[in-house]
């Protein structure tokens, strides 16, 4: 990244997002054993660069569809942090009023489509948002984040075909971390020619292997620009690595299903550290204290918020 003022503004923005996500999730992991969090957490630590890079290409009128591993994209798209933490605490002020939990974050105002805990189900739903965007001529696009495992569900193929057939403004982003829970790709994929497969629908694809936030951002910018011009769907497969266990706050390299060596190259180029090093230290320090305050406030808000009362149970079953 050359040192132009514009570029350093971008770097700073990306760093701020990356760092915010990282600090939030590390705080989640820290408090988790104290039992304040009331639903299973799937951390994206190590994978944040994808959400940060992609969402930097988006506007408020755009939507993102996230997964149960969705903290990063929720935050990157501008989801309300207080409401997110309160939701994880099971509080009434949570983004789902305590009815969703960590796996079902939503922020309609920020354009965050609610997440599902059933893998793959969000893909056609996101496609439906893209259909609406096109029909309603909002000019908005939809980004649908999925894991590598989700591509194995039949609705992925069905959705790709429909999105391409109707030239819908949707960017599918596959966060390929090589695992579904503890099962590696080799036990689930006949081949790794995912991009080739998607391309057969007439969808432009790109595979990003370098783990670079800016590469991701540029690819997303390009795809989104083409989509706003009516170009139809696009697809990014982005390699990444999950640093923590599938669900829960800990590392799990002692469990035997994967080795810590796999993490080494990813940790070596940790985007949070790398982008920090590109910025003036005083900026980094300012961002750090700003984020610390924001995050502390969010957890304090969640902590102080009341639980729903039992009678609330019956709200919102029907509109």
């Amino acid at each position, binding site marked *: 990244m050359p040192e132009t003022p514009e570029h350093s503004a971008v770097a700073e923005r990306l760093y701020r997002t990356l760092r915010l996500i990282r600090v939030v999730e590390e705080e989640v992991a820290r408090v988790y054993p104290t039992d304040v969090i009331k639903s299973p957490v799937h951390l994206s630590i190590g994978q944040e660069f994808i959400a940060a890079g992609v969402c930097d290409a988006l506007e408020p009128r755009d939507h993102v569809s996230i997964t149960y591993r969705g903290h990063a994209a929720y935050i990157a798209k501008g989801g309300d942090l207080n409401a997110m933490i309160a939701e994880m605490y099971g509080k009434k002020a949570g983004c789902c009023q305590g009815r969703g939990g960590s796996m079902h974050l939503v922020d309609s105002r920020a354009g965050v489509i609610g997440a599902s805990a059933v893998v793959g189900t969000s893909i*056609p739903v996101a496609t439906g948002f893209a259909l609406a965007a096109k029909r309603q001529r909002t000019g908005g696009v939809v980004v649908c984040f999925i894991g590598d495992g989700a591509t194995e569900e039949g609705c992925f193929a069905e959705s790709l075909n429909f999105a391409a057939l109707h030239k819908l403004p949707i960017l599918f982003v596959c966060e390929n971390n090589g695992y579904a829970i503890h099962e590696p790709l080799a036990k689930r994929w006949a081949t790794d020619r995912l991009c080739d497969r998607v391309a057969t629908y007439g969808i432009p694809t790109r595979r990003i292997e370098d783990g670079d936030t800016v590469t991701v951002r540029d690819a997303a910018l390009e795809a989104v620009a083409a989509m706003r011009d009516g170009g139809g769907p696009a697809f990014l497969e982005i390699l990444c690595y999950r640093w923590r266990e599938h669900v829960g706050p800990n590392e799990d390299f002692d469990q035997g299903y994967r080795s810590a060596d796999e993490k080494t190259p990813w940790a070596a180029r940790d985007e949070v550290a790398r982008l920090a090093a590109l910025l003036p230290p005083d900026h980094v320090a300012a961002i750090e204290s700003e984020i610390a305050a924001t995050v502390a406030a969010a957890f304090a808000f969640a902590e102080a918020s009341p639980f729903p009362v039992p009678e609330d149970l019956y709200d919102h079953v029907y509109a």
Partner: protein
Amino acid sequence: MTTSTPESASGSRLLRYVDALREAFAQEMERDESVFVFGLDVDDHKSIQGSTAGLLKQFGPERVFTTPLSEDAMTGVAIGAAMAGMRPVHVHIRMDFLLLCMNQLVNIAAKARYMYGGTVKVPLVVRSMVGKSWGQGAQHSQGLHSMFMHVPGLKVVAPSNAHDAKGCMIAAIRDDNPVIVMEHRLLYPTEAYVPETPYAVLPGKARVVAPGGDVTLVGISNMVVECLRARELLSEIGISAEVIDPIWLSPLDIDTIVESARRTRRLVVADNGWTACGAGAEIVAAVLERLGPEGGIAVKRIGFAPTTCPPSPTLEAAFYPNPGTVAAAVHALVRPRDVAWTPDPERTKLAHQVQFRGPF
């Protein structure tokens, strides 16, 4: 918006069920730009037995379009579009195909509003047709409404006549929740008085279709028609049956049924589906919970035989309840000490069933 009943005549014409449905779509699509109709074959020349006829021409291919054979994803697409502010009507030529959509319908559509804390709504209509008739067999005949009645967050409706077909469809389209509509193939050609202007037959109100004092006979979907025929047969032997059409199965107007059963002391539910954990089980259990032990109500469920649906005519005839089997079951309940009675099979046939011949 007015409400009305199948008998009300001002501004009404005799209309077939299928045309009443078509009119509902045309009027709602005219009224509200966000309504669209999609699903396999909605835009072809057969236009879902005529129920979507003319819509493509009137509203264009952006609002009336077929899909790939991808029921699961298309349901998700409908849900997403609904959450994003549109009002999709997703059409399935057979209710059996909803089994491909259960995950989206139950895990997402039913739960979205709740699990997202009331921040979204899913104004989705899912039309599905029950294929009872000549040789439809195992996978083109199922009435799966009870599976949907089981799930909080879904509404379920089964209009039994042209008037309700239009009114329920309009109500379903305007409802902010996902509504599963069970239409019955054999009802399509049946006629009723249907007002020209739009009106809604709203959720949660059953209708007493015909009064009676000896037994409360609840019919679901086309079983309403067959119950009315059974009522005629029963009246000939001096048994007076009150026939109730719940119309909406979820939310279910149990009060109207309780009220009637309290009076008649006998409750028979004739369903267009299997009885185990079926709509009849729900109605019987709910009525008895309400009436308590002093009720002393005699109850009976009638439905599909507990087998898969066979196409061979001799087996098919034994599989489905009909006015004769309904009447016989009611007779056994009302006069348990009499010898069993079955009406003349020739007289139990319904005119349209005699005429209809396959395949679709």
